[in-house]
């Protein structure tokens, strides 16, 4: 039930100069740090977390929410500009975003990234406010059987990527599955395929894998170009000084609106999947990206389409508001970032669980208003930083790429202070280069790598609960619906691909 007095109190707290400054600071930290590969925004959030001991709720949460939202968008900046995802959630943006930069449309891509991020964010926040109770009520009905079916639906999307070239798609998915299972078994602790390397027992971390996989092939390509083709800047057509001054064409309203499929489906996917514990921003953006690839009318989708950027970024950011749904209704953190935000709320004296909305209405309204207020600041600061980043892409390759390479190495170490993460990143880079050379699609690998641990954990939990009875997986209406959706999706995507192949 809506409480006017609590809303009034929350309004006065949030729309005060101190709160606004904390949000701005948070957004600035988030965008700047999110744009550095390896420094996922969970790191700055963890760093500012101790402030919750000394600052009041509205200031702490303003700072944290600003960092979260800024960081989620910030990851796309380097993904678009340098083909290096700043955060794992921005990995799906690399393909179209970086291709657009190479076509000289970097500014357009960055603006599309920003506007679609804000769109996803705003809609997801509104959904959170109005549907926090109904969506929160459905989430705990997802037991191991339902989650197995849900992750099977996600895995069925691998078919979308593989249908065009089944052989290479299957290889890519197989490598993704294999990389995901390296390390200790999640249930029994048995060591699988570590090849005697103690460091691999902890498994392969997502961020070093994705950063290496996407960034290193670009670094190799650019540095190889610098070594083998030393050209006069004048020969390449433009003077570097003039090139830096040159103004790029920005995104038009028509271009933004024409990506409505991506914006719509990205928001829906990000909000719905983001409300469930487990999937995270990376899986949401890849899921939306693969679904839109089937319905997009843009022939350049996957090769440099604004709609691709819009889809991935809307889905990525739509998880921001949705993450709060299981947190505020059942005290379940949906991701590592949600766990940090939850810790801050607990330190502020807000216990999270089914009674949070009733017992701490004012605090909940404060969170809603902070989430909404962070969006205009994300937009303003993002707009201010876009020209800076789009100019960075015009720095000569011999100067820019060695710096990116070094920052990646330090970023990978800073992630967990584990030197072996650097080795994982470099090995992933070699795999990434092999993928480029052999023309293997990257989508199946990423999807399989993300979904496999979730699928395996729930599948084995369910099979243990059911004592081997397979019918357990089809027992509830939710799981039945999800299995039907998976079958329909596979049949639909395969027949669609075949038809387009015949044409």
């Amino acid at each position, binding site marked *: 039930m809506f409480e006017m007095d609590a809303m009034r109190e929350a309004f006065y707290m949030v729309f005060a100069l101190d709160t606004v400054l904390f949000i701005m600071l948070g957004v600035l930290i988030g965008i700047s740090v999110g744009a550095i590969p390896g420094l996922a925004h969970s790191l700055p959030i963890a760093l500012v977390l101790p402030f919750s001991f000394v600052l009041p709720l509205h200031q702490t949460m303003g700072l944290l929410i600003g960092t979260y939202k800024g960081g989620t968008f910030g990851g796309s900046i380097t993904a678009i500009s340098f083909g290096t995802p700043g955060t794992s959630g921005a990995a799906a943006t690399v393909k179209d975003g970086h291709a657009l930069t190479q076509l000289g449309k970097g500014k357009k891509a960055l603006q599309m990234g920003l506007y679609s991020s804000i769109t996803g964010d705003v809609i997801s926040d509104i959904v959170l406010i109005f549907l926090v109770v109904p969506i929160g009520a459905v989430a705990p009905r997802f037991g191991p059987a339902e989650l197995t079916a849900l992750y099977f639906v996600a895995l069925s999307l691998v078919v979308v990527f593989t249908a065009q070239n089944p052989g*290479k798609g299957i290889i890519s998915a*197989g490598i993704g599955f294999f990389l995901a299972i390296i390390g200790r078994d999640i249930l029994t602790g048995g060591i699988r395929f570590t090849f005697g390397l103690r460091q691999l027992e902890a498994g392969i971390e997502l961020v070093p894998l994705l950063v290496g996989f996407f960034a290193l092939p670009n670094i190799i390509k650019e540095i190889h170009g610098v070594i083998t083709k030393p050209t006069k800047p004048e020969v390449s057509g433009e003077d570097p000084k003039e090139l830096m001054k040159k103004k790029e064409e920005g995104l038009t309203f028509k271009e933004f609106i024409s990506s409505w499929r991506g914006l719509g489906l990205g928001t829906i996917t990000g909000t719905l999947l983001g409300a469930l514990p487990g999937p995270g921003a990376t899986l949401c953006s890849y899921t939306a990206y693969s679904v839109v690839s089937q319905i997009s009318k843009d022939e350049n989708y996957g090769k440099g389409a604004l709609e691709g950027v819009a889809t991935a970024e809307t889905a990525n950011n739509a998880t921001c508001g949705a993450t709060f749904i299981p947190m505020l209704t059942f005290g379940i953190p949906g991701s590592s970032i949600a766990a940090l935000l939850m810790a801050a709320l607990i330190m502020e004296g807000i216990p999270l669980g089914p009674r949070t909305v009733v017992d701490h209405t004012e605090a909940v309204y404060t969170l809603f208003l902070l989430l909404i207020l962070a969006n205009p600041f994300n937009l303003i600061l993002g707009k201010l930083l876009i020209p800076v980043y789009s100019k960075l892409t015009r720095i000569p390759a011999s100067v820019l790429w*060695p710096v990116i390479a070094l920052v990646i190495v330090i970023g990978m170490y800073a992630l967990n202070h584990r030197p072996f993460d650097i080795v994982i990143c470099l090995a992933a880079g070699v795999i990434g280069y092999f993928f480029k050379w052999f023309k293997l699609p990257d989508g199946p690998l990423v999807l399989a790598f993300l979904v496999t641990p979730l699928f395996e954990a729930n599948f084995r939990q369910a099979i243990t609960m059911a004592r081997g009875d397979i019918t357990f997986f089809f027992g509830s209406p939710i799981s039945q619906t999800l299995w039907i959706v998976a079958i329909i999706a596979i049949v639909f995507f395969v027949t669609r691909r075949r038809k387009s192949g015949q044409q």
Partner: protein
Amino acid sequence: MKNRLSSNGIVGIILFVLAAAGFIWSYSMNLRPLEVFIPRIALGLIAAGGILVLIKDLLEDPEKKDLPPRENLLPYIAGIVLAMWLYGWAFRNIGILTSTFIFLSLWWIWVSLRDEKAQVSNQPLAIKLGKLTGAALLITACIQLLFIELLGMHMPTTPLP
């Protein structure tokens, strides 16, 4: 000769052999069937994919074959990967300031000298080197500020990863 094997088909065979070997090896592992269930699916998929690529390669018209470029990039890949790993080792053992400055300035000095030799730059070498050394110092300072002063990154001396 019609339908000859291209690089695609050869890589398909290699992947098939590796995955099949892994699949067979999984039976000699001291693991429960459920623990190797997903790994076997993964290896089976790679093997099946390898066969599909090989079949497609054999059936395809040799003139239309989509061959990957034959440019020998292996030395560059190895060199770049080694340099990045070496930097990771260096910043933990000789400090982030020293290692970053050395790596950046050495690279830029080499590029500048090579450009000078090939006479592809209009700028005098001394000015160019001065500018790049300044840039190396600035970037080193920024990295030190961000990772050490602000984030307080802990860096123990570890000879090997």
